[in-house]
């Protein structure tokens, strides 16, 4: 069963990394995910100031705006998709993810299966 771990950074340091953990923590976590053979995909996202939103109205008009700049404290900073047997295992990996530290959170969502 595939689960997406949506990594919401709590507070972001000057260099763009999440507070409460350093680069080495991420390297270690990434290696653990790879070594466990559960890695499906994963990316970390560029800084939020680079984000752009697109909307298309009913009449086809396209609106492109800078942002969004979330008013919430948490910002989606990256994701993993892992393949594990059940939610308990997925939650265990989410708890080990450095993004869950320092006021951040990891949202665990099953990937829909239309098979």
């Amino acid at each position: 069963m595939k689960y997406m771990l949506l990594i919401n950074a709590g507070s972001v340091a000057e260099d763009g990394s999440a507070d409460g953990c350093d680069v080495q923590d991420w390297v270690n976590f990434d290696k653990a995910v790879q070594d466990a053979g559960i890695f499906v995909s994963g990316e970390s996202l560029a800084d939020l100031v680079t984000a752009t939103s697109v909307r298309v109205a009913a009449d086809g008009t396209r609106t492109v705006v800078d942002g969004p700049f979330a008013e919430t404290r948490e910002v989606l900073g990256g994701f993993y998709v892992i393949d594990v047997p059940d939610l308990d295992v997925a939650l265990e990996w989410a708890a080990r993810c450095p993004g869950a530290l320092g006021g951040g959170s990891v949202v665990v969502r099953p990937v829909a299966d239309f098979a």
Partner: protein
Amino acid sequence: MSSSETGAAVEAVFREEHGRLLAALVRRFGDLDLAEEVTSAALEAALVHWPVQGVPAKPGAWLMATARRKAVDRLRRDQAYAAKLALMQVDAVTEPVEGAEFPDDRLLLFFTCAHPALPPEVRGALTLRCLAGLGTPEVARAYLVPPATMAQRIVRAKKKIREARIPFRVPGADEWPGRLPGVLQVLYSIFTEGYVASSGPSLQRADLAAEAIRLVRILRLLLPAEREVAGLLALMLLVHARRDARTAADGSIVLLQEQDRGRWDGPMIAEGLALVRVALTGGPAGPYAVQAAIAALHDEAASVATTDWPQVVALYDVLLVLTPSPVVAVNRAAAVALRDGPAAGLVLLDALRDSDKLRDYGPLHVARGELLERLGRRGEAVSAYGKALDLAGTEPEQAHLRRRLAALSS
């Protein structure tokens, strides 16, 4: 045996066996909906066959064999289940041996129903449904919501269990300390909902509290070495023993100091006291054991005046360390007032009143009102009771506070 007698026998057996049957089927097939469906189908079959053939020697095993046969039939028929059938290597050829005992898998249902990924308000409802064998309408009545609302909550919870794949498993030893308190919390919340209904016309719903006690008895059977399970059962019994004395014939509240202690349930207290000793022996006491010990001191005393208040305060000190909470601090302050006098208790309550968590906590204002009244500070007592009245959820609580207000102004 008449058909109505058989019907009653079937119902008694079913309520007893429902949880065991459901748990064993969930473990076997990994599918709660299927397990519920064939559990019901097995009962219907019993209603047809037992009046004719008599109740089998091992009714549980008969129900289990019937349910498994129906599950296999259902899996065979259902195309969508075909792959699953192969995957689970369901043994469709060999008929389950009738009369064979099956293991008690109810522990995994306790853990799944109390899973932290489920919304808190639905964990108790699922537990009552799966393990106490209550139907959705009965569960809805227990929580004072319309049956359709409860049905929707349960459907959503089951959808989450199925689609997010919340596993049917007993957590491993390393997860145990994090998960067992969640199970106990669910059972205690069912009990307190029965003990002090959060809203509605009646102060207590004894049948819900009795249901919670029945569930903890099952858990104690499954986990005889867990002292906090013994502690929780002790706490429930020692509190529930006072149920008949807590309300007057007209449904109004009778305070602890005015209760007729002769109406307390002696055998239930005796059972609770024996369990408190179990819960307190063999290592550091857990929070339920300590709360049970406090309830025991009340139950053992002949009156409020002769209650061992220094010991009660000491136990609240322990509880405050184990589970620091402003609510515990309020109860401790009330006990201090009985040990050292109302002024000492009031100092503690006034300090607590300013915390955000307690500003809208009714019992704090009731306790303040009582102490202010005893100190002769009528005006302040009136405003404390008035604040409590605004916050009171049940009609008997409101009536009680109106009476106290009326007495103060006369």
